[in-house]
C-alpha cells in the first residue's frame, strides 16, 4: 500500500511531525513503513512552458525546433517527441535543472541548432511508465490549457509529495484505504479525523425506475448497491485526481473510471462502472456462471467460467466477473453518457477462488479477499456518485437499487482490565484503556469495572479479547512493558541422553578431523535410494519444483559426494566431511515416513600431509575404519563392533564392509566404486553411513572402574603363514577362544604378502598379552596357554608357524 502524505493530510492533520517521524510512529504502532519515496526526487528548475511555435528541424527528420514561453521569456528548445505541437502547455526542464538520477540539463546544440533545455515526458520526471496515461505513454506530457507558463511543473503535477510504503501484515486490511490509514494515524497521534462530506443534488428521476436488480447467489453476494448517473461527459480527469491516482500507483484513464479508483483507494471499497446503455436490458442479475459459460474481460481475454464463479449479468450474459474484473461488453468508453455504479460485498472466499482460477489479482480482488467493511458499501457508492456529479458533469438519479442481507452489527467484546494487565505484566488503569479506545474510535462503555466495546466493522481483525490487548499495548507503547522472566514449575531442563550423545558424536568426528556438512533432504530419483542401508518405499513430493529435488533422501552419501565433487572441482582436494541428519524410509502407521537419524562421512585425497618431513599418506579403507572404531569406543560399544565384507551397489566390491553392532547391521563402510568415482570426477574416495539412531539407542553398561593391574603382564609374539583368504578377524577369534582367561589382548602387528611367502598365502604376526590380576604369571603358565593357541591355529586355520 502506497500512502501519499499529501493525500493523507485531507483526512488527518499530521503536519506537526516530519514525514520521517510520522513513519517511525506508524511503524512502532504496528504497520511497518518499509520506505519513504520522495516523488520530487530532488528535481529542480522544471517549469510549465507554452509552445508558441514549432517547426521541423531542417537537418533531422525526427526533431522539432520549438519556441517556448517559459514565463516572460522565449526559449528555443529542440524536441524529439512525436506528439509535440504548437499551442501545447508542456513540462520544461530549464538549463541547470536536475532530473531524477541526478541528470543535469545543459544548453546544447543539436545538429547546429541551439537547445535551451528539454521538454519532458512524465517518465523523465520519475513516474513509472505503467502509471502514465496511455495518451502520453509514448511522448511528452501535455498539460491542460488552464495553466500558466513559468509556474512550477512539479507543483502542478503534485510531485512535492512523499509516499509511505506500507508493508501490511495480512490482518490489517483496514489500512488498505486512506480512511483506514487516517483512523490509524489519528489513533497514534490522538487526533480527530475528517471524513469526506457527501452531498449532491439528485435528479427527480429514480434509479429504481431505470434499473432492475436481482441477486440469485445471495451467499456469495449478500449486498449489492447500484447507483445510476446520467448525462455524464467522459473526459480526462482534472489534474489533481490524476496526480492523486498516480501517487497511489494507479494509472489514470478517464474521469468515470478514475473516480471509481479514487473511491477504491479512499474507502477501500472496490467499485465498478458499467455503461448503462451497453447493458441493454436495464437489468442486473448476480448469479453463478454456468459451467463452460464464456465472457471477454476488460483485458480482451476470453475466459471460460465454471459454476462456482460469481458473475454480474445483464440477465442474459455476464458483464463482469464479480470482484475480479469487468467485461469488455459493458465497459465505459468515450461515448458513454449513463453510468451504473456498482458497490457490493462479495464473499472473500468466492473472490479468492475466482481470482486464483483466472490468474487475476487486482486492487479490487485483494480487498474483497480480505473482506470489505460492510458499513461502507453504500457510502462508497454515494461518494462516487457525488464525484461524478462534480467532476463528470453527471446527474445522479434519486436513490439506489439495492439488495442487502449483509449483517452490519458491530461485534461486542467485554474485557476486564485485570485480564489485560495479567497478560501484559503491566498495570494500566481502566481509564487509560478507555482513552486508547477513544483514540481508536472504538465506542466503549465502562460497565461494572469492565470495558464493553462495540467493534466497528472497519476493524475486522478485532475478534477476541487478545486482539484488544494488542490494541491497548501497541498504543500504550511496547517500550513501557517491563522485562521479567517467566516463573514456571521448575524442570531441570537440559539435553536428553540422546541429544547429549549426538553432540558427543559430532565433537568426536570433528576432533578426528572431519568437518560438518549440511546438505538438502530432497534428492533426485537417481540419488534418493543410492547407498541406502535398507530397501524401503520412497516419499515423493506431490508438486516438486524440480526433479533434482523431488524425493526425500534415504541416504546422506550421495549429497556428501556432491559436496566432495564441488570442492574437488575448486581444487580443495583433500576432503573430510560428515553429516548427521534424517533419512526417510517407507510409511509408518500414522501415514508419516519413518524418519531415522543417520551419520555419514566422506574422505578423499590426503589424510596425512606433512611434506617437508616427507610424510604424506592418502586416505584408505583403514583410515575410515579407524574413525568408525573410535566412534564406537567413544560410545562404549567398541567390543560389540564387527565388520564383515559386503557387496553394496555403487561401492568397490573388494573394499566394502557391513558394520555390525552385536548381531544388528547398522551401517556400511568402504570405497566408492571406481566407475562411480569417475562419473563423479573423484579420485579414490571412502564413505561410511550408519544408523546413528540405532547406535545411540543401544544401552551401554554403566561405567565402572576396573582395578589398575598390580602384577606385570607377559607378551608373546607369533608369526603365521596362512591362506590368503583367511581373515584377520577369524584368526583373532581362534586365538581368543584358545587363549583362555589369561589372554587379555591380541593385536595384529605385521602383515606380509609377496616374495618370501608362497603364492596364495600370507604372513601375519600377532602380539598376545597374558595377564592374571591375582598373581604374577610364571613362564609355565604362559607356555601352557600359548601352546594351546598355537595348536588351535594349526588345526583350525591350517596355519604354519614361522620362526
Amino acid at each position: 500500500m502506497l500512502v501519499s502524505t499529501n493525500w493523507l493530510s485531507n483526512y488527518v492533520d499530521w503536519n506537526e511531525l516530519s514525514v520521517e517521524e510520522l513513519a517511525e510512529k506508524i511503524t512502532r504502532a504496528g504497520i511497518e513503513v518499509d520506505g519513504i519515496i520522495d516523488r520530487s526526487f530532488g528535481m529542480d528548475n522544471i517549469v510549465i512552458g507554452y509552445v508558441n511555435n514549432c517547426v521541423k528541424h531542417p537537418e533531422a527528420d525526427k526533431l522539432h525546433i520549438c519556441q517556448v514561453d517559459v514565463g516572460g521569456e522565449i526559449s528555443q528548445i529542440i524536441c524529439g517527441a512525436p506528439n509535440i505541437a504548437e499551442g501545447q502547455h508542456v513540462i520544461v526542464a530549464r538549463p541547470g535543472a536536475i532530473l531524477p538520477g541526478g541528470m543535469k540539463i545543459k544548453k546544447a546544440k543539436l545538429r547546429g541548432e541551439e537547445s535551451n533545455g528539454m521538454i519532458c515526458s512524465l517518465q523523465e520526471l520519475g513516474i513509472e511508465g505503467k502509471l502514465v496515461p496511455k495518451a502520453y505513454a509514448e511522448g511528452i506530457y501535455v498539460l491542460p490549457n488552464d495553466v500558466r507558463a513559468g509556474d512550477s511543473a512539479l507543483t502542478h503535477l503534485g510531485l512535492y509529495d512523499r509516499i509511505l510504503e506500507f508493508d501490511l501484515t495480512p490482518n490489517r486490511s483496514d489500512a488498505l484505504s486512506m480512511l483506514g490509514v487516517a483512523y490509524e494515524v489519528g489513533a497514534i497521534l490522538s487526533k480527530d479525523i475528517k471524513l469526506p462530506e457527501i452531498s449532491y443534488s439528485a435528479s427527480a428521476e429514480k434509479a429504481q425506475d431505470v434499473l432492475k436488480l436481482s441477486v440469485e447467489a445471495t451467499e456469495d453476494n449478500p449486498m449489492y448497491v447500484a447507483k445510476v448517473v446520467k448525462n455524464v461527459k467522459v473526459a480526462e480527469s482534472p489534474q489533481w485526481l490524476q496526480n492523486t491516482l498516480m501517487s497511489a500507483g494507479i494509472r489514470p484513464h478517464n474521469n468515470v473510471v478514475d473516480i471509481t479508483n479514487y473511491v477504491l483507494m479512499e474507502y477501500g471499497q472496490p467499485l465498478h462502472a458499467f455503461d448503462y446503455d451497453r447493458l441493454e436490458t436495464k437489468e442486473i442479475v448476480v448469479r453463478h456462471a454456468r459451467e463452460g459459460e464464456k465472457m471477454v474481460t476488460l483485458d480482451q481475454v476470453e475466459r471460460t467460467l465454471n459454476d462456482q464463479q460469481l458473475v454480474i449479468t445483464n440477465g442474459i450474459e455476464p458483464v463482469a466477473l464479480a470482484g475480479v474484473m469487468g467485461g469488455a461488453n459493458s465497459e465505459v468508453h468515450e461515448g458513454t453518457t449513463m453510468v451504473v455504479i456498482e458497490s457490493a460485498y462479495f464473499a472473500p472466499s468466492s473472490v479468492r477462488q475466482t481470482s486464483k482460477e483466472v490468474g487475476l489479482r487486482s486492487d479490487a480482488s485483494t480487498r474483497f479477499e480480505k473482506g470489505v467493511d460492510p458499513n461502507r458499501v453504500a457510502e462508497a457508492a454515494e461518494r462516487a456518485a457525488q464525484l461524478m456529479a462534480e467532476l463528470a458533469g453527471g446527474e445522479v438519479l434519486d436513490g439506489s437499487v439495492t439488495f442487502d442481507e449483509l449483517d452490519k452489527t458491530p461485534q461486542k467484546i467485554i474485557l476486564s482490565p485485570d485480564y489485560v494487565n495479567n497478560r501484559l505484566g503491566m498495570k494500566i488503569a481502566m481509564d487509560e484503556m478507555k482513552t486508547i479506545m477513544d483514540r481508536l474510535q472504538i465506542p466503549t462503555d465502562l460497565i461494572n469495572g469492565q470495558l464493553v466495546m462495540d467493534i466497528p466493522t472497519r476493524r475486522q481483525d478485532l475478534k477476541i479479547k487478545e486482539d484488544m490487548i494488542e490494541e491497548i499495548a501497541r498504543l500504550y507503547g511496547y517500550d513501557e512493558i517491563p522485562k521479567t522472566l517467566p516463573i514456571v514449575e521448575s524442570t531441570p531442563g537440559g539435553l536428553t541422553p540422546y541429544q547429549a550423545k549426538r553432540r558427543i558424536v559430532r565433537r568426536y568426528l570433528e576432533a578426528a578431523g572431519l568437518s560438518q556438512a549440511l546438505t538438502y533432504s530432497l534428492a533426485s530419483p537417481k540419488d534418493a535410494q543410492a547407498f541406502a542401508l535398507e530397501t524401503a518405499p520412497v516419499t515423493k513430493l506431490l508438486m516438486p519444483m524440480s526433479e533434482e529435488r523431488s524425493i526425500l533422501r534415504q541416504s546422506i552419501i550421495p549429497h556428501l559426494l556432491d559436496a566432495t565433487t564441488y570442492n574437488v572441482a575448486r581444487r580443495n582436494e583433500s576432503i573430510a566431511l560428515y553429516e548427521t541428519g534424517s533419512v526417510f524410509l517407507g510409511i509408518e502407521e500414522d501415514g508419516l515416513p519413518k524418519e531415522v537419524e543417520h551419520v555419514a562421512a566422506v574422505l578423499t585425497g590426503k589424510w596425512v600431509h606433512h611434506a617437508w618431513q616427507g610424510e604424506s599418506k592418502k586416505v584408505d579403507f583403514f583410515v575410515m575404519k579407524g574413525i568408525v572404531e573410535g566412534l564406537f569406543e567413544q560410545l562404549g560399544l567398541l567390543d560389540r563392533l564387527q565388520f564383515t565384507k559386503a557387496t553394496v551397489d555403487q561401492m568397490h566390491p573388494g573394499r566394502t564392509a557391513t558394520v555390525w553392532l552385536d548381531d544388528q547391521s547398522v551401517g556400511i563402510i568402504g570405497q566408492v566404486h571406481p566407475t562411480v568415482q569417475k562419473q563423479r570426477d573423484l579420485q579414490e574416495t571412502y564413505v561410511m553411513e550408519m544408523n546413528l539412531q540405532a547406535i545411540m539407542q543401544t544401552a551401554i553398561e554403566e561405567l565402572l572402574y576396573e582395578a589398575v593391574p598390580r602384577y606385570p603382564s607377559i607378551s608373546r609374539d607369533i608369526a603365521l603363514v596362512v591362506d590368503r583368504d583367511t581373515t584377520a578377524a577369524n584368526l583373532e577369534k581362534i586365538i581368543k577362544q584358545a587363549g583362555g582367561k589369561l589372554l587379555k589382548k591380541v593385536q595384529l602387528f605385521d602383515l606380509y604378502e609377496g616374495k618370501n611367502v608362497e603364492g596364495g598365502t600370507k604372513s601375519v604376526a600377532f602380539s598376545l598379552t597374558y595377564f592374571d590380576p591375582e598373581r604374577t604369571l610364571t613362564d609355565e603358565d604362559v607356555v601352557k596357554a600359548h601352546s594351546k593357541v598355537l595348536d588351535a591355529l594349526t588345526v583350525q586355520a591350517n596355519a604354519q608357524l614361522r620362526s
Partner: protein
Amino acid sequence: MKEQLHELKEQVMLKIKESNTVKDLNDVRVAYLGKKGPITDLLKGMGKLPAEERPKMGALVNEIRESVTEILEERKETLEQQAIQEQLENESIDVTLPGRPVELGNHHPLTRVVEEIEDFFISMGYEIAEGPEVEKDYYNFEALNLPKGHPARDMQDSFYITEDILLRTHTSPVQARTMEAKDGASIKIICPGKVYRRDSDDATHSHQFTQIEGLVVGENIRMSDLKGTLDLLAKKLFGAEREIRLRPSFFPFTEPSVEMDISCFKCGGTGCNVCKKTGWIEILGAGMVHPNVLEMAGYNPEEVTGFAFGMGPERIAMLKYGVEDIRHFYTNDIRFISQFHRSEA
C-alpha cells in the same frame, strides 16, 4: 721398580691427554688399570719383592693407581662435556619450520549458532524438543490456528506429500505436539530443526533452512516475561550493550504478536548499511500463544497463558559473521565451513 712405576705413570698421563673420546679413554683405562694391564702385572710381581719393601711399593702402586684414576675421571668428565656440547650443536633445529599439522574438523556455522542458543536456554532450565520433518497438516497448520482454507497455507508455498502430509514449513508443529503430549502441564522448550518451503534458491531464499523456536506455557506467563527473555537472548547473541524493541506484528498462532529488533551491533544505533540506516535490525518474531492454539492442545486459555518466539539461524549467522548469501550454508565449500574453527569465547 720405582722408576718403572713413574715411567708408567708418565706414559698413562700422556695417553690420557691424547684421548679425545670417552671410548679412547676407556681403552686407556682398560689397557693400564685393567686386569691384564701393567699395574695389575706390577701388583702381581710384588710377590717377588723382599717382604720389607712390599708395603712401601704397595702404597706407591696404589697411590699411582688412584692418581691415574682421578685424572682419568677428570678427563672423562671434560670429554663428556665436550661430547654433549657437540651433540647439542648437531641437534640444533630451525624452530621456524612448520609444525606437524593436527587436522581439526569443525561444526557447521548453523550448528554453532543453534548450539549457542540451545545452551543459553538450557542454562535457564529449558528442554530441547524435536519432532518429525515430515508432518501432518494438522500439526503444521490446523493446531496452530491456520484452519483449512486459510490464505497463509497456500499449496504453492509448501511441499506436500499427500493432501494431509507435508514437509514442515516451520518448527512450530513440535510446539503443538509438545503441548498435546504435556496434557496440561507447564512447558519450557526450545525447538530447533530443518524446515522447508517452496521457494527458489537465491541469495536470500532457500527451499530448506533451519529454525529455532521457543515456547513457555504455564499459569501467569506474561508478555513482560517474553520481553525479559528476548532481551537476555539478544545480549547473549549480539553483546551486552544490545537494546531490544518490540513492534506489533501478526502471526496466526500468537496474539498479540511482535517482531523484535535489536540495536545495530555495527553502528550502535546511529545508522549504517547493516541496519539500513535505521539503527535497528529485525531478529525474530514472537508473541503470546493464541487462545485457539492453547485450547486445541487441551489448555484452558482463561487460566493458562504462554509465549512463543522463533528465529532463523541462517539470518543470525549471516548477521553475526557477515555472510551475504544464504546458499553458502548448503554448498559445503570447505573454504567456507573451515572459517568457523575458532572459538569465540
